Structure formats: C-alpha cells, structure tokens
C-alpha cells in the first residue's frame, strides 16, 4: 500500500483567491489523480497528474481553473484558482499502484470552504 498525506487538511478562503493543495506519497508511483467531492455527493475525477508532462483533465475541468504540477514521482499539487463558493468541496489525492491489484489509495482529503 501507500501512505499519502495532504496539506492543508482544511481551509477557509475568500472568493477570488487561490489555494494550492499538496499531495505527498511515501513511495514512487506512476499514477496520481485529483478528485473533487462536493457536499453530500460522490467523487468526480478532476485530472490525472502525469510526471514530466501536462495533466490530463476530465470533461468540465480546465487547466486555468485547476492547474496541476507533478515535479516528481512522489509529489503533486492542485491549485484551485479564482475561487467561488461553488468550489467548496473536499479535494482528494489518489495514487494508482498496478502491482497492488490495480488498487487506488486515497489521501485524507482537503476540506475547502469558500466564503
């Protein structure tokens, strides 16, 4: 398995500002993913963070709003830009490990509230 940490664990932000969420893994992983979980809802994939290249975004999510970095095989950041109250969600980092039955392991999440 993998141990995943996220910073911050929660934050309250003003509209119009940006927040960068960090995801750190205790081992090198090929695949890293960012999910959004809006209040009372399921998880939706934002993008796949690719090491050494641009992230791959899902329909409905754009790089200008959710820029992602993946500088190495153990770290990634997600920025939520120009925030509005609709961005209030839990943001979860996940890693895929093919050698472990193709499982995905999740970080503890970042709870973001935008006022």
């Amino acid at each position, binding site marked *: 398995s993998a141990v995943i940490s996220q910073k911050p664990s929660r934050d309250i932000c003003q509209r119009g500002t940006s927040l960068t969420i960090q995801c750190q893994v205790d081992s090198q992983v090929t*695949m890293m*993913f960012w999910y959004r*979980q809006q209040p009372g*809802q*399921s*998880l*939706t*994939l934002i993008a*796949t963070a690719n090491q050494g290249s641009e992230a791959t975004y*899902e329909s409905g999510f754009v790089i200008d709003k959710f820029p992602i970095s993946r500088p190495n095989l153990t770290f990634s950041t997600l920025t939520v830009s120009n925030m509005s109250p609709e961005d209030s969600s*839990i943001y*979860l980092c*996940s890693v*895929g490990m093919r050698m472990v*039955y*193709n*499982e*995905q*392991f*999740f970080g*503890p*999440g970042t*709870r973001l509230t935008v006022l």
Partner: protein
Amino acid sequence: AQTVTQSQPEMSVQEAETVTLSCTYDTSESDYYLFWYKQPPSRQMILVIRQEAYKQQNATENRFSVNFQKAAKSFSLKISDSQLGDAAMYFCAYRSASSSGSRLTFGEGTQLTVNP
C-alpha cells in the same frame, strides 16, 4: 462511457445483523475491476473489497463479501455481523483494465447507519 448506479441513498441495519448494498454498472468492456470503498466521517476513503471481472468466484474479506453477476452487471456488497464501526458512506466504483483506463468511476454512494 461507463456508469455506476447505487439505487439506495440510505440503508440501516441492526448491530450483528446482515445488510446488502446494491450496485449496478454499465460498460461495453469485458475486462475490468470493481471496488467497494468506505468513507467514514473522517472522510478517508478505505478500500473494502475488490473484484476482478475475469474471476467467477465472488470476493470475500472477513465479514464483507460480494455477489458479482457479470451478465446482469450487478455488484452487491454484503456485510455480515454488522458493527457500529461499519457506519459510513459506501461507494461502488468501476475501473477499466485497459492500460489507459486508470480512472475510477464512482456511484452516488449509500449512507449506512448501524443501530445498536
């Protein structure tokens, strides 16, 4: 595109009893993986059980077992001897087995309450 449907927004069970959570999915692929994840109030996503589509035998992990019906595209989770710590949101998830199909597609979730 694949879709996952959980038709039970909420379920409740008495402690020590058995409960079954339903999940159906839609896919045109023949090889894939199915998962049940648990999300307690701490919001940490915890893998409960996995099933490879090519395996006919239903997966079992201690008190948790699945009923995988590939033809019917059904993947239900049975929790036996329910415990208070089982109370959580449960998500069914699908993942393609293709090299490019790394993403998980989640159902809407079922909120499980365990009554003492």
